[in-house]
């Protein structure tokens, strides 16, 4: 292996591999290789290795290691770095995140007290049976939601972000030269446009793309047929990095489901199904307040959406088990956020009676269900849908609603949006700013939801193709800037925030890939 893997990193990797299922699987496979008659004792090692390669185990191991590399960034910190520094190196951002968590929790608790409902309760047997019997149609008879309101919306989160200040950085008063034009006032390191062009060079205009060159007006012989043929070959190869490389130019609709599974390293076995069933049993046993929040969210978003209303029941089958999934807690070692804690009644503040609430540590906000909704177009079986969603969430989407300095955190993405827009459309930015409409105020909700629910579903999936394949969320602000550029003529005419919002209210007609190309490569 290359030398840029630190010994500590390799050690961690080996540790993880040893404790995972693939280790025992490989062990067993190696033993059965040895037992084969054609292996000579003199060439035992070589024989077993080639045997494992031939039976596909080597590729499986490679895939597993690749998934580890994808999710565990190389850290330049020495081993002894405290965990909280790995979560978030800046103290002021750490504090801001903690304050934000406290605020969410407080609002959740006050809703509990106000409405006099417990955070969690065991369901009586009768209710359990009833719930089990209508598991596949949970949407028909949900709980009373009239009193429930979302804990927070992207708008509230934006207000917090606007107030963030780096205490070590003094830009003078607000009119000073060093003050940025936008809402995010933090000095964070960003990729500039040239760097982005190199990163996304596969999206260049001279490259054929799924999402542009497969449109109905172009005969399939020109591009689409070959693309699908190649895609089938890639799928047959069953190799994560290969699928990821292929997806950089977009996935054909009919192959996307399988390609994404390979990119994310999802291969379901009976244990996964069992685990999902376990989560489902937990949903049936206990009623949580967050369930109502999720119900409310689905009713407010997906059920009202022409594209997603049919999937209402699927969404519950994913979101409710998701809240019970304690495997999710692992991702908090990489997340600047920490799982919220609650205390058993009467033991407030006593650490040993603290429980993580909800069990997965994620309090849903308004629009959370939209992270799942587009995936319903891809997977019919809830179990597969569940694991794909969980993987995408723990790789990418959690960064969209926690305060951190990570280059793909919402802070950097927001700042990237503002900087790019200022650089490319200074006239537009200045105009909008001067009529009291900071562009980020409109674009922020797009970013937080990764555009889900704003674009038409096929376009969202084409966009997420690129998120997965480039392993980065930076495409989101690039698209947001391109949308502003694209509607520039009309935006330059607006004189108020509402007018600007109206211009950008309907994005369902947009074609994202040509827009991204426009934003990245046109100037």
């Amino acid at each position: 292996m290359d030398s840029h893997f630190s010994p500590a990193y390799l050690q961690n990797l080996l540790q993880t591999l040893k404790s995972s299922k693939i280790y025992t699987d490989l062990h067993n496979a190696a033993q059965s290789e040895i037992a084969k008659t054609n292996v000579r004792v003199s060439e035992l090692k070589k024989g077993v290795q080639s045997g494992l390669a031939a039976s596909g185990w080597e590729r499986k191991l490679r895939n597993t290691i690749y998934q580890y590399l994808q999710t565990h960034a190389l850290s330049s910190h020495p081993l002894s770095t405290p965990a909280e520094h790995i979560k978030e190196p800046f103290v002021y951002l750490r504090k801001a995140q903690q304050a934000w968590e406290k605020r969410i929790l407080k609002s959740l608790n006050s809703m509990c007290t106000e409405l006099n409902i417990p955070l969690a309760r065991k369901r009586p047997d009768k209710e359990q049976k009833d719930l089990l019997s209508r598991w596949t149609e949970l949407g028909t008879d949900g709980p009373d939601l009239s009193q429930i309101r979302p804990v927070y919306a992207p708008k509230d989160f934006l207000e917090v972000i606007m107030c963030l200040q780096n205490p070590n950085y003094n830009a003078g008063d607000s009119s000073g030269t060093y003050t940025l034009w936008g809402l995010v006032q933090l000095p964070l390191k960003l990729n500039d446009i040239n760097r982005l062009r190199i990163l996304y060079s596969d999206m260049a205009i001279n490259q054929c793309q799924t999402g542009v060159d497969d449109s109905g007006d172009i005969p399939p012989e020109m591009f689409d047929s070959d693309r699908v043929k190649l895609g089938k070959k890639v799928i047959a190869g069953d190799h994560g990095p290969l699928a990821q490389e292929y997806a950089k130019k977009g996935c054909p609709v009919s192959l996307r489901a399988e390609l994404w599974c390979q990119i994310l390293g999802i291969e379901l076995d009976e244990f996964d199904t069992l685990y999902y069933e376990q989560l489902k049993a937990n949903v049936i046993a206990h009623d949580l307040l967050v369930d109502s929040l999720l119900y409310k969210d689905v009713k407010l978003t997906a059920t009202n959406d022409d594209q997603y209303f049919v999937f209402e029941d699927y969404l519950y089958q994913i979101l409710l088990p998701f809240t019970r999934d304690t495997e999710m807690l692992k991702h908090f070692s990489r997340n600047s956020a920490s799982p919220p804690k609650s205390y058993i009644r009467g033991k407030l503040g006593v650490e040993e009676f603290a429980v993580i609430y909800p069990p997965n540590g994620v309090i849903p906000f308004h629009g959370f269900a939209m992270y799942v909704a587009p995936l319903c177009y891809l997977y019919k079986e809830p179990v597969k849908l569940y694991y794909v969603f969980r993987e995408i969430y723990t790789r990418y989407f959690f960064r969209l609603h926690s305060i951190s300095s990570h280059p793909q955190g919402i802070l950097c993405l927001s700042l990237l949006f503002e900087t790019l827009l200022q650089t490319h459309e200074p006239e537009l930015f200045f105009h909008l700013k001067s009529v009291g409409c900071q562009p980020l105020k409109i674009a922020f909700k797009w970013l937080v939801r990764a555009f889900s629910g704003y674009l038409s579903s096929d376009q969202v999936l084409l966009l997420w193709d690129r998120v997965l394949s480039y392993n980065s969320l930076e495409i989101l602000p690039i698209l947001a800037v391109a949308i502003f550029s694209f509607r520039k003529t009309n935006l330059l005419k607006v004189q108020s925030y509402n007018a600007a919002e109206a211009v950008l209210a309907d994005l369902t007609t947009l074609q994202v890939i040509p827009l991204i190309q426009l934003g990245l490569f046109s100037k």
Partner: protein
Amino acid sequence: MSKITRVPGYMQSKGNRNRGPIGDREIRYKCSMQNTILDVLRARPGWQEVSGPNTAANQQQPGQKGSATGSQPAKDKNGPATSSTGGTTTTKTSNQTTTPSNQMTGTTTTTKSSIVNRGFPTPQPTPRIVDGDWDFYWCDREWLHANYDTMFLQEHQKILHFRNHYELTRKNLMVKNLKRLRKQTEREMGKKEAESFDFFPTTYELPSEYHIFVEEFKKNPGIIWIMKPAAKSQGRGIFLFRKLKDITDWKKGEYQPLTDPNREVPETYVVQRYIENPYLIGGRKFDIRVYVLVVSYNPLKVWLYRSGFARFSNSRFSLDSIEDAYVHLTNVAVQKTAPDYDPDKGCKWATQQLRQYLTAKHSADAARKVFQGIDNIIIKSLQSVQKIIINDKHCFEMYGYDVLLDSKLKPWLIEINASPSLTASGKDDYDLKYGVLNDVLNVLDLENRLTGKEKRVGGFDLIWDDGPVLADDGSMECSVNGSSTTANSFLGCHSERKKQLREIYTAAQALKKSVAS
């Protein structure tokens, strides 16, 4: 409300021109509907509304589908489209405020009266009106029945509906025609070929085929049947049953002359084997609405619209509650009365969305097969009446096909409507219907802007022109490799109708110029 005065004799002077005598004057239209079609006609540049009896301009058409309550919101949403044609033709949507013109007194009653009057001289078709005051008439079926036999149409005039359109739209006749063509095909081309007709469930006409039905019923105990009035639409009078007792009870009620004194013969019903394994999305049943335009039956010339929608039932599908119509019928008209119907939500998907879903969930081939199956349904059903429909070059018909998929992704023909609802249920729906109707006018091309050789006009693709139409293989270079074998059918495919229209109009213009010079 004065009629627009014309130069007398304009018709004669230009009457012998090849493609209609409408030179550079406006096209005059009549319309008896109150909904989207009127918006389309009014917004069309160079078209002028003719007032007269039985037009939207001065009366509310009572027999019209969807009625005024439905058409109103759609128009509100689309203010600019309706605001044309000045004050003379301001639409009045309420019956009370309408003052029928003198000669019309007494005929604004229900449309039943005009059916009853069929065959007798009716007061409304005064010679002045049928004479050719209009170039284009979007009439209702009842009007056509009453007037078709007595009117004389000029060369260029276009009117909606064929004389005996009911051959396809009445459920019993549709099945009868399909069964006949199936038999003929089996005789002439063998069993294999006849299997391509297996797209409608076992169906019997009641009361005439009651005995055959009972026999069939006893052969397959336990299956569910669906009973539909042959002539009604929008889900009225439909119910499901499993036991013969249910139907005998109903028979007593239905066939008693007391229920409706005007009815002398029992109403015709069809009873159909219910498709018990529909394809479900999110646990919901749906059917697909497909728009088809027939401009001629001899030779058969069929255009298929790319867009359409899938209508979802409001509740989850289950066979436990067969008396719950909301689960089983996907008609918007039925769903609208469901207790938790939310008009803003709209239980609809665009056909594009459905195609995308099927492609992602199954495969591109599976989706293609579904839509090929739908093409087959359209062609076969139209062929089944090709020799029966009285062809008339003045007539055209826009059909709304309702197709259901079963769990094996096989499409089934549910019914064909000759007056598909044009009342919009929301903005997207309005845009769709507005586009369809506009493209109907574009295909008919009264303005004479096209060359007549187009295979695609806006969202419409020509799928049958006295034989299958093949898709262009796009670029010039490809055509060297031999012609492609894909049909020119793009249901559920991307439709950029406006862009396409611009292109063909420019092309046609250029061609005409070069021919002239």
